[in-house]
C-alpha cells in the first residue's frame, strides 16, 4: 500500500542504485547516495528529538537540497525551503508563521542562518547539512517514525505570495503528492528514460513535476544553473549536452529562447516533451516552438499550489484557431473540476464560472492560518449531506464546445469600466496577436479608472493602439500603451503584474 512518498525512493534504489538521480551538470547524487544521505539526515534529526514539525532548509539550489528535503520527511517532519535570494523581510514573515525549532543549512548559507538567529527572526537550532549527513542511519529509529506516519501527514509547506503581501504557507500531505505524481505521470507519460531539466526554484511546488517522477521511475533531473536562463544558445546547448528530453517550464523561460531567435540558432531538438504553464503562452511564441519541434509533444499545465502542483492538462492534440486561447483542458485522473457560477450552480457549456477543485489533490490548507484557510477551502456547495472540502481557485473559466476547460482570468482581473465587463487577458491576447508583439501585460489603474497596457515588441505604441482599435471594443482600449524592453518577473518567472500595476498607478 502506497502511503508515503519515500516508498518511491525505496523501491527505485533497489532497481537502479547507481543511476544519476539529480545533478547540477557537474556533480550529482545517484539514487543510492540520495537514499543514504536522506536516511542519515533523517536519523540525525530524530536523534535530536525533532518530529512532526517544520524543518527549514536554507541551502543553495543543488541536488543536496533535495536530499535534505527527503531527510526531513524520513524524520517524520515536513520541509520548508528558503532561498538565499529571498528578501530578509519575507524570510522573517515565513519564520514567524512557522515558529520552527530547527534549520538545516549548507556551508554557503551558514552566515545567513546565523544572521537570522541574531536578528531574532529565528530562535531554533542550526545544523549544517554536511555534519548531519556524516552521521550513521539508524534503521530501528526510522522504522519507529514510519509506523507513526500516515498519508495525511504533511511533507512540505510552500509559501505563495498572498495578495495582501503576507505570504501564505500551503501544507500538502503524502497522499496528495502521491495522487499528483501518479496522475501527472499517467497523463504526460514519463518513464525511466526521462531526462528532466528543472527551471524553477526548489522552494515552490513546481519542482515536484521533476522530483517526484524522478524518484518514482528512476529518471534523472538536471538542475539548470539560473544564469543560463538569460542566454538562449548556451541554455539550448546545455539541454543537448545532457540529453535532456523533457522540460516543464514557465512560459517566460520558453519565450526567452524563442523571442530572440534562439530556436533557429541552436534548436533544442533533443526535446520530445515540452510542458508549459503557470501563465498564458503568447500564441506567436507557442507557434514558433511548435514549428521548431514538430515531433515533440506539448502540454499546457494548469493548477494552483493549493491543489498540489498542477491539476489540469491539455495535450495540444489539435490545431488551434488563430485567435483561440490555449485551453487548460482536462483535470488529471481523480481530480474533479467544479465550475461554479456566482449563485452556486454548476456552469453549463460556454457559461463562465469559478474553477474549484475537488479530490485528494486538495491540500491541508494554509499553515497556522485558519482564517485564510476557511475562505478558500470550503464545503462543496453542491453537497449538503456530509463534510467535503473543495478549493476555490479564484480563477474564472468556461468549457468550450469540445468540453475542454478554458482559463479566462483571475476573478480579480475582471473589472468593470463604465458598466462594461473587461478582462485584462483579452486585451493582452489582442495585443499579442499583432505582428511584432512578443509579450503584453494589461493592468487596471483603479484610481483613474483606466487600462494601461505594457508591451514588448517591435512596434511603436501608436501603431499598436491603432491595431487594437480594429480588434477590441472601444471600452476595452487601453488609455495608455507603453513599450517595455521586457516584462518584470516574479522569482518563479511569471509576469510580475503587481509591480506593473503599481508602476501604472504612479504614472
Amino acid at each position: 500500500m502506497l502511503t508515503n512518498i519515500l516508498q518511491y525512493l525505496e523501491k527505485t534504489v533497489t532497481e537502479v542504485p547507481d543511476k544519476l538521480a539529480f545533478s547540477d551538470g557537474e556533480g550529482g547524487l545517484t539514487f543510492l547516495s540520495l537514499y543514504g544521505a536522506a536516511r542519515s539526515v533523517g536519523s540525525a534529526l530524530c536523534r535530536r528529538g525533532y518530529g512532526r514539525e517544520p524543518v527549514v532548509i536554507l541551502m543553495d539550489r543543488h541536488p543536496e537540497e533535495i536530499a535534505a528535503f527527503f531527510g526531513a520527511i524520513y524524520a517524520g517532519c515536513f520541509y520548508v525551503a528558503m532561498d538565499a535570494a529571498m528578501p530578509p523581510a519575507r524570510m522573517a514573515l515565513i519564520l514567524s508563521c512557522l515558529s520552527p525549532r530547527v534549520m538545516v543549512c549548507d556551508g554557503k548559507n551558514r552566515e545567513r542562518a546565523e544572521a537570522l538567529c541574531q536578528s531574532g527572526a529565528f530562535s531554533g537550532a542550526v545544523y549544517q547539512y554536511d555534519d548531519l549527513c556524516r552521521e550513521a542511519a539508524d534503521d530501528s529509529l526510522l522504522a519507529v517514525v514510519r509506523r507513526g506516519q500516515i498519508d495525511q501527514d504533511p511533507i512540505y509547506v510552500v509559501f505563495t505570495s498572498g495578495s495582501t503581501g503576507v505570504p501564505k504557507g500551503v501544507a500538502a500531505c503524502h497522499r496528495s503528492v502521491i495522487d499528483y505524481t501518479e496522475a501527472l505521470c499517467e497523463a504526460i507519460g514519463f518513464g525511466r528514460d526521462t531526462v528532466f531539466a528543472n527551471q524553477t526554484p526548489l522552494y515552490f511546488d513546481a519542482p515536484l513535476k521533476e522530483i517526484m517522477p524522478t524518484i518514482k521511475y528512476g529518471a534523472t533531473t538536471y538542475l539548470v544553473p539560473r544564469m543560463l536562463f538569460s542566454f538562449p544558445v548556451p541554455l539550448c546547448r546545455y539541454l543537448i549536452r545532457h540529453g535532456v528530453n523533457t522540460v516543464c517550464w514557465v512560459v517566460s523561460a520558453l519565450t526567452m529562447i524563442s523571442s530572440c531567435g534562439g530556436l533557429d540558432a541552436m534548436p533544442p531538438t533533443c526535446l520530445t516533451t515540452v510542458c508549459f504553464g503557470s501563465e498564458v503562452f503568447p500564441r506567436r511564441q507557442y507557434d514558433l516552438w511548435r514549428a521548431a519541434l514538430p515531433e515533440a509533444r506539448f502540454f499546457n499545465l494548469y493548477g494552483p499550489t493549493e491543489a498540489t502542483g498542477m491539476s489540469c492538462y491539455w495535450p495540444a492534440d489539435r490545431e488551434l484557431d488563430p485567435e483561440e486561447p490555449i485551453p487548460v483542458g482536462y483535470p488529471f485522473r481523480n481530480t474533479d473540476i467544479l465550475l461554479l457560477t456566482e449563485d452556486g450552480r454548476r456552469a453549463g457549456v460556454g457559461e463562465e464560472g469559478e474553477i474549484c477543485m475537488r479530490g485528494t489533490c486538495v491540500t491541508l490548507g494554509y499553515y497556522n492560518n485558519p482564517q485564510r484557510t476557511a475562505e478558500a477551502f470550503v464545503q462543496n456547495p453542491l453537497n449538503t449531506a456530509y463534510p467535503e472540502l473543495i478549493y476555490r481557485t479564484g480563477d474564472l473559466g468556461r468549457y468550450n464546445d469540445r468540453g475542454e476547460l478554458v482559463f479566462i482570468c483571475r476573478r480579480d482581473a475582471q473589472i468593470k469600466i463604465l458598466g462594461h465587463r473587461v478582462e485584462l487577458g483579452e486585451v493582452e491576447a489582442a495585443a499579442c496577436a499583432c505582428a511584432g508583439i512578443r509579450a503584453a501585460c494589461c493592468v487596471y489603474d483603479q484610481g483613474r479608472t483606466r487600462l494601461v497596457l505594457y508591451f514588448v515588441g517591435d512596434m511603436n505604441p501608436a501603431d499598436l493602439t491603432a491595431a487594437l482599435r480594429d480588434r477590441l471594443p472601444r471600452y476595452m482600449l487601453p488609455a495608455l500603451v507603453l513599450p517595455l524592453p521586457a516584462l518584470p518577473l516574479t522569482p518563479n518567472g511569471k509576469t510580475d503584474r503587481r509591480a506593473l500595476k503599481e508602476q501604472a498607478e504612479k504614472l
Partner: protein
Amino acid sequence: METILDILHELHDDVDFSVESGLVGQGILNSLDIVTLITEISDRLDVQIPAEEILPENFDSAEAIWALVQRLDEA
C-alpha cells in the same frame, strides 16, 4: 561606451560599471537585465544582437558589451 554605461546605470544605479567586471558571473545582471540591454542597444545604437552573440562573456563587463556592439556595428 557612454551609452552602454548609461543603460547599465539605469538598470542598477548602485554599481560602478566603469570598473566592475563579472556582471554575469557574480549575478549582477539577471535575465530581465540582459533582455533590457539588448532592446536598449537596439533602440539607442541601432545595433541588433543576434541570438548567437547573447553569451555570458559578451555581457560580463561594460567593456565587453561595448566591444560586442562595435564588432556588430562594423560587420
